[in-house]
């Protein structure tokens, strides 16, 4: 007796064409990796632009930075993770730290990186420290997060950071019914495939359809994998850059246009994706 699985399989009547050789795929990926190990000292933004130059990122801001510009700042001087000649990643080692010590370290690293990448920018943080321990975000990850507003002469943008370090064998305190973390896991570790996962807090949440949404992936410094996302929904505009490092650590930074922009004017974009990429690809931001 036929099953629905069999019937579905038999419904495929169009002949299957030849497929690209798997060996060609492997060879292509090997060449790609070899290419992107070169120039790792040039910073994340240059590599990003080289790889995703054809992606139509949007948003010509009023008084802000263009959508994607090269900001060839190297890795933060505060990091102890010096790249090997091949761009290999080594997680910075800080010894045993309390949450308060980690917060202080991360705050300093973020502010240092921000001022390097976006001269003149300052952080209007809602609470101190800006980056605090988040014990309930993701299982088997030490998480620090922070929300605030970045202010610079061109305008302002809301900012949200999530910083992750793998801690295998640990569990999270997961409030019953709260499953927002699925969204965070997908949006941080899922690349473009997970970039637009719906928020889910115990029941499906309808998500406003963005007017435009774009995503691209690229190789970054220190063997990181970058995901760059833009979403626009009317006058709401956000940029998000995520760097996932080879050991599973990750840094995610989102900026959103601030409501203090001119009513009815185009979305105000303070930081472009290249700048965000330069910040998140700094191993000094790993907890």
């Amino acid at each position, binding site marked *: *007796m*036929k*099953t*629905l*699985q069999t*019937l*579905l*399989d*038999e*419904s*495929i*009547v*169009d002949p*299957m*064409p030849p*497929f*690209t050789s*798997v*060996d060609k*795929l*492997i060879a292509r*990926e*090997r060449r790609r990796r070899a290419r992107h190990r070169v120039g790792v000292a040039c910073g994340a933004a240059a590599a990003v632009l080289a790889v995703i130059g054809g992606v139509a990122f949007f948003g010509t801001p009023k008084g802000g930075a263009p959508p994607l510009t090269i900001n060839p700042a190297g890795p933060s001087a505060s990091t102890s993770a010096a790249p090997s000649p091949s761009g290999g990643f080594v997680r910075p080692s800080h010894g045993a730290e309390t949450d308060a010590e980690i917060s202080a370290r991360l705050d300093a690293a973020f502010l240092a990186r921000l001022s390097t990448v976006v001269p003149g920018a300052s952080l209007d943080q809602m609470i101190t420290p800006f980056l605090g321990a988040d014990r309930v975000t993701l299982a088997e990850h030490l998480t620090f997060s922070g929300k605030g507003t970045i202010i610079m002469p061109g305008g302002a943008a809301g900012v949200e950071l999530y910083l992750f370090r793998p801690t295998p064998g640990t569990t999270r305190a997961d409030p019953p019914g709260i499953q927002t973390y*699925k*969204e965070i896991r*997908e949006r941080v570790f*899922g*690349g*473009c*495939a*997970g*970039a*637009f*996962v*719906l928020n*889910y807090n115990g*029941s*499906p949440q309808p998500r406003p359809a963005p007017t*435009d*949404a774009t*995503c691209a992936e690229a190789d970054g410094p220190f063997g990181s*994998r970058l995901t760059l996302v833009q979403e626009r929904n009317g006058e709401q505009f956000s940029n998000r850059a995520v760097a996932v490092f080879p050991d*599973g650590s990750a840094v995610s930074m989102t900026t959103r246009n601030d409501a203090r922009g001119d009513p009815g004017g185009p979305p105000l974009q303070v930081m472009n994706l290249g700048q965000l990429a330069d910040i998140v690809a700094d191993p000094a931001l790993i907890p």
Partner: protein
Amino acid sequence: MGKAEDDEYREFVLSRLDRLRRTAYLLCRNWHTADDLVSITLTRLYRSWGRARAANNLDAYVRAILTHAWLDEGRRPWRREDPTDRPPDRATEVSFSGASDRADLAALLTALPRRQRTVVVLRFYCDLSVTETAELLGVSEGTVKSQSARGLEILRAAVPDHVLGELS
């Protein structure tokens, strides 16, 4: 990746490739897009092979990559399809004779809205449970059940009752 890992990846992919392509075809209903999705999936798998190969269920991992690539494609303006809000009328007189029913089933599957088609393919072609499907899609089990039921209702015209009866 070293040669040993490349060989391991190659062996895994070749043993799953046909099934993966057919799953992709059922989702998007044309070989060109299907093979695009499979290429994206295999590329992402290769790039994460070091971590992926240690996964408890590598097939599930690959299936998730494919599914999310498919759903992501649907969000891009240049690839957006127009899912119908009004599925075709159910045929009232269809005898299960083979070739014509395959074409009917194909047409009805094509007419399902994207998410509903995804749920039907995951549940009944990939043989995932309600829980596994919900987990993969990041939705509730109730949503999976209702999408499955609606999808099967549409496909009823081309599927024998005794087949659908076993699924209820």
